[in-house]
């Protein structure tokens, strides 16, 4: 038993050739966000507070596809979604189609705490945000020049860009947009305190060039996000594959019904239940274990546990220095 925390900044075909000027700021952001989480958990904040805090920080960072830095729909707009869940009570909140709320994850938490519902979407979610007085910004706040360029390229290629899991015809890696490091899904955080209380939070801008109105796995309890008294999970990657495999609930069900350990269950999902190059996840157990497997080329990730273990990495088995 001990506390543990893990976070991700998306999984996908992150080219190993990513230049240092693009890699380093992201590694630094992962370290920074991890430190914020570790400090908060050491200070005795609840796991629910910790995951919200860390995801807010990831949302505010323009290098990740959530909050500021969200990718654009085919209409050139942002439609963000987020979800938060508390393990002990299984209380949860989710939002989709959010366009002006600075931190979608905090709106998801308000849905959980201040409405009889779990999930609000689009105009209704925006109206609720106004009613609650949560911080809102002009949509232009979220839109970065990089993402305008990404949409342009995706449109030219006439495709929905899904975490670069699909090979791009006529565009080789080096020539591809911005060295292909972004597009990437989602941000998320899972945490457990030394008493075994668990929580999870996930937030995303979705897919580049997605159809307006598209909902992915992130806000769906049991798919992109899930926590109970056994484990907490946040998934990232190709949403449609994660929905189909109900990745979040799957992990908990494998532990509860089949008696697998956290890492066995996570490995099973990544190896057997989801197609190659589609899925990554981070998870912690009530016992304080942590796991971060993925079947994509890479996953921006970081974790720390009470016994002093820390890892920050992008590609397999190659923790950053």
């Amino acid at each position, binding site marked *: 038993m001990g506390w543990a925390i893990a976070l991700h900044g998306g999984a996908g075909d992150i080219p190993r050739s990513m230049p240092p000027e693009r890699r380093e700021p992201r590694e630094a952001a992962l370290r920074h966000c991890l430190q914020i989480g570790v400090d908060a958990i050491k200070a005795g904040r609840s796991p629910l507070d910790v995951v919200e805090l860390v995801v807010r920080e990831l949302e505010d960072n323009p290098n990740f596809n959530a909050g500021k830095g969200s990718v654009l729909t085919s209409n050139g707009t942002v439609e963000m979604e987020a979800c938060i869940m508390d393990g002990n009570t299984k209380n949860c909140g989710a939002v989709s189609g959010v366009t002006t709320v600075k931190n979608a994850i905090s709106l998801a938490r308000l849905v959980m705490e201040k409405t009889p*519902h*779990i999930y609000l979407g689009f105009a209704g979610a925006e109206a609720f945000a106004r009613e609650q007085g949560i911080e809102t910004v002009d949509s232009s706040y979220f839109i970065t020049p990089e993402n305008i360029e990404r949409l342009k390229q995706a449109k030219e290629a006439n495709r*929905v860009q899904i975490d670069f899991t699909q090979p791009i015809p006529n565009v080789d890696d080096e020539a591809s947009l911005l060295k292909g490091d972004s597009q990437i899904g989602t941000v998320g955080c899972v945490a457990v305190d030394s008493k075994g209380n668990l929580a999870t939070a996930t937030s995303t801008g979705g897919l580049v060039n997605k*159809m307006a*109105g*598209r909902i992915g796995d992130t806000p769906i309890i049991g798919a992109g996000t899930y926590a109970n008294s056994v484990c907490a999970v946040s998934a990232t990657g190709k949403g449609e594959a994660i*929905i189909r495999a109900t990745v979040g609930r799957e992990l908990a069900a494998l532990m509860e019904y089949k008696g697998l350990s956290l890492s066995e269950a996570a490995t099973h999902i990544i190896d057997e239940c989801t197609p190659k190059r589609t899925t990554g996840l981070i998870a912690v157990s009530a016992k304080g274990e942590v796991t971060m497997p993925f079947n994509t080329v890479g996953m921006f990730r970081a974790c720390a546990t009470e016994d002093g273990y820390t890892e920050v990495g992008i590609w397999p088995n190659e923790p950053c220095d």
Partner: protein
Amino acid sequence: MEASIMDGSGRRCGAVSGVTTVKNPISLARLVMEKSPHSYLAFSGAEEFAKHHGVEMVDNDYFITEDNVGMLKLAKEADSILFDYRIPTIGESCSSVVDTPPLQMNGLPISVYAPETVGCVVVDSQGQCAAATSTGGLMNKKVGRIGDSPLIGAGTYACDLCGVSCTGEGEAIIRGTLARDVAALMEYKGLGLQEAVEYVIEKRLDGGGKAGLIAVSSKGEVSYGFNSVGMFRGCATEDGFMEVGIWE
């Protein structure tokens, strides 16, 4: 309105939410599954997609019945969110004295836990399962509220083993990932269909949530379970068994 559909073989799925003019949301959900790169479209995006594919659209008035206008008015006055009301408790009509007199509406007692969603699960003689669920949601719900019906694993799920469709208190069904858990119990705990259905109704609806579900297995079994007062249901199997019921 919202709906979802799932094909057990291949676990393909489609879902829609916030649909206001599509006559049959379930068919739009199927189009999302078959004609879009996505699994789930909502609100104006779903409506646009419907127009693009020439799905039958009707004026919003088409869906609105006089009964439901009256119900909304009463629900607003009571400042409460109501599930649908159409299932009176057994014996209600002949008993004027009950421990807690139920709130009356249009002469019918309101059972707050008698929600109405529609759903269907099917297995063919080759063992292929499918599930579909469609709903108007909760009365007096917040605009934008999404319930369990469009959520794969919550209101709807199908795989190689079974097909499941749920109805009831959406928030409890979402929290309990009810439909997925029927399948997970069969897959990972080796339970039979009926056992799995009973298990989720008993153990997965924490916090007093009321819900019901229908399910079929790839072996051609059919099962249902609910902890609400009743559930409108019907089923038939190849060997000639047929049942239509409301209460236990």
